[in-house]
């Protein structure tokens, strides 16, 4: 009888691909994991199935209409897009925004940051397969959604800015202010309890500590923005440069470790900072009108505006001609964070792959823009820059 021989053991490299429609990923995108013995050696994220050409629709529309349209770029940070688009026009036309309107804009934006971060916590915990935490985060988020619905009139697309101020619908009277303050108290208490429970759960901590590590050096090289960057220890927040936030006192939260734990705690601490800003804004809310209608439409050159939104830095740019938008460009923070998502997956177990992507707070719907990456050294179009920075 012939002797049986075991096959020579060797590491087998496989490719696991998900998408574009997949249970673990809410949004349509495709990810390829290159796996060696259950350890991810490389990851590749492809987007593009969502491209709807918002910039093209904006082209040639009256500025006011185009501003309203930018709201439809993203369903999570919808107000931020309207705000930045309006801000772009205001910079170009030289519109003075009344103080009260600036404060209301800040309040709505901070409420948006609260709901976005709570959504992140909910989504993150769901990806961790901890449904109880996830449900808890979603439950806390409902308080904010009610407040946003009350101010803006809609639970999701509630953009409050118009050129020269805010919509009359978004005026804050005493009753609304009381409701916002009550809501802030409730959210602060609930999030504190949530965080306390979260950091004392040794099972969860063992899963998230050290997972999806992004070193600071690499984070800067990939030019990632927002809380994802701050979680690696870089103290960079565009809110410090924006004139809207001049009168507010808040800390820029940073974490050192750059792993999933840092990312999650980062959002928890930012929630408290946002609550602080909302309270200050309500305490110092100036009297006066909320819309300045004394501006005139003029032709302008290319105008640019950067603001800090829940996921990072948002960029809008267009020129105005005959009151219409020309050459609109939008760059969303998730676009730059895709590099971080790919990098974070490397050297992690395949079960943590999705977690590593979710930790960077992806929003692939808003990142589906037509982009060109230029190699500034050689001044030529280079599609491989995003990929080559990783290696």
């Amino acid at each position: 009888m012939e002797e049986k021989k075991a096959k020579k053991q060797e590491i087998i490299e496989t490719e696991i691909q998900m998408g574009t429609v997949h249970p673990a990923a809410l949004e349509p995108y495709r990810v390829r994991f290159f796996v060696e013995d259950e350890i991810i050696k490389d990851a590749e994220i492809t987007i593009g199935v969502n491209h709807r050409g918002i910039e093209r629709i904006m082209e040639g529309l009256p500025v006011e209409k185009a501003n309203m349209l930018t709201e439809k770029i993203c369903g999570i940070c919808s107000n931020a897009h309207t705000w930045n688009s309006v801000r772009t026009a205001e910079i170009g036309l030289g519109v003075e925004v009344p103080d009260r309107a600036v404060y209301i804009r800040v309040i709505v934006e901070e409420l948006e940051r609260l709901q976005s971060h709570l959504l992140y916590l909910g989504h993150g915990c769901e990806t961790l397969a901890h449904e109880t935490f996830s449900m808890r985060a979603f439950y806390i988020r409902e308080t904010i959604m009610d407040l946003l619905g009350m101010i803006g009139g809609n639970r999701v697309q509630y953009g409050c800015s118009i050129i020269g101020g805010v919509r009359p619908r978004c005026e804050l009277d005493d009753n609304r202010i009381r409701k916002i303050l009550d809501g802030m108290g409730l959210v602060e208490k609930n999030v504190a309890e949530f965080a306390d429970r979260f950091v004392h759960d040794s099972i969860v901590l063992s899963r998230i500590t050290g997972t999806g590590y992004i070193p600071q050096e690499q984070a800067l090289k990939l030019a990632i923005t927002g809380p994802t960057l701050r979680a690696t220890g870089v103290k960079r927040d565009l809110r410090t440069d924006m004139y809207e936030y001049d009168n507010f006192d808040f800390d820029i939260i940073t974490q050192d470790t750059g792993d999933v734990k840092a990312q999650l705690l980062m959002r928890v601490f930012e929630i408290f900072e946002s609550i602080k800003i909302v309270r200050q804004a309500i305490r110092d809310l100036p009297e006066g009108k909320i819309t300045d209608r004394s501006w005139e439409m003029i032709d302008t050159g290319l105008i640019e505006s950067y603001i800090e939104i829940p996921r990072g830095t948002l960029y809008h740019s267009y020129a105005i001609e005959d009151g219409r938008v020309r050459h609109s460009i939008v760059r969303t923070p998730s676009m730059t964070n895709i590099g971080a998502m790919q990098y974070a997956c490397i050297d992690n177990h395949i079960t943590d792959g999705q977690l590593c992507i979710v930790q960077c707070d992806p929003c692939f719907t808003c990142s589906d823009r037509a982009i060109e990456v230029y190699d500034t050294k050689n001044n030529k179009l280079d599609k491989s820059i995003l990929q080559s920075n990783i290696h």
Partner: protein
Amino acid sequence: MSLKTHARSKAIHIMLVYTGGCNGCDIEIVNAVLSPKFDMEQYGVFLTWNPREADILVVTGPVTHDNKEPLIDIYNAIPNPKLVVAAGACAVMGGVYKNCYGDIPSEEIEGPVENVIPVDAKVPGCAVRPQDVLAGVVAALPHLLNAD
């Protein structure tokens, strides 16, 4: 009421497909089914991500060109009887993206959903409200329960 209908009425499974909207409707629908405030699960409506165990397909978004084939594949994978609910302005009538290239014929947007797969119920709104999603699903239910 047949035994099959009785059993089915206790566990309606929704599958959510997302075809290029803005994420707003999407989160609201997940919110409607899962979150403790609206909690559709208390009425025996569950969210699934497997087309083979789904009864109702909820479609959001204007169906971009790249999403058309996956959507048809998913529709075909769902066993009969099945229902399709188009949720949100984009899915119902194309929304703001319908004429995304103005007068130039566009190949980018295939929607509204009706153009791609048959639709049984339409839920309007931008974004849909969780209560409306529930109402839309409930309105479509008799078709499903009287199917056999």
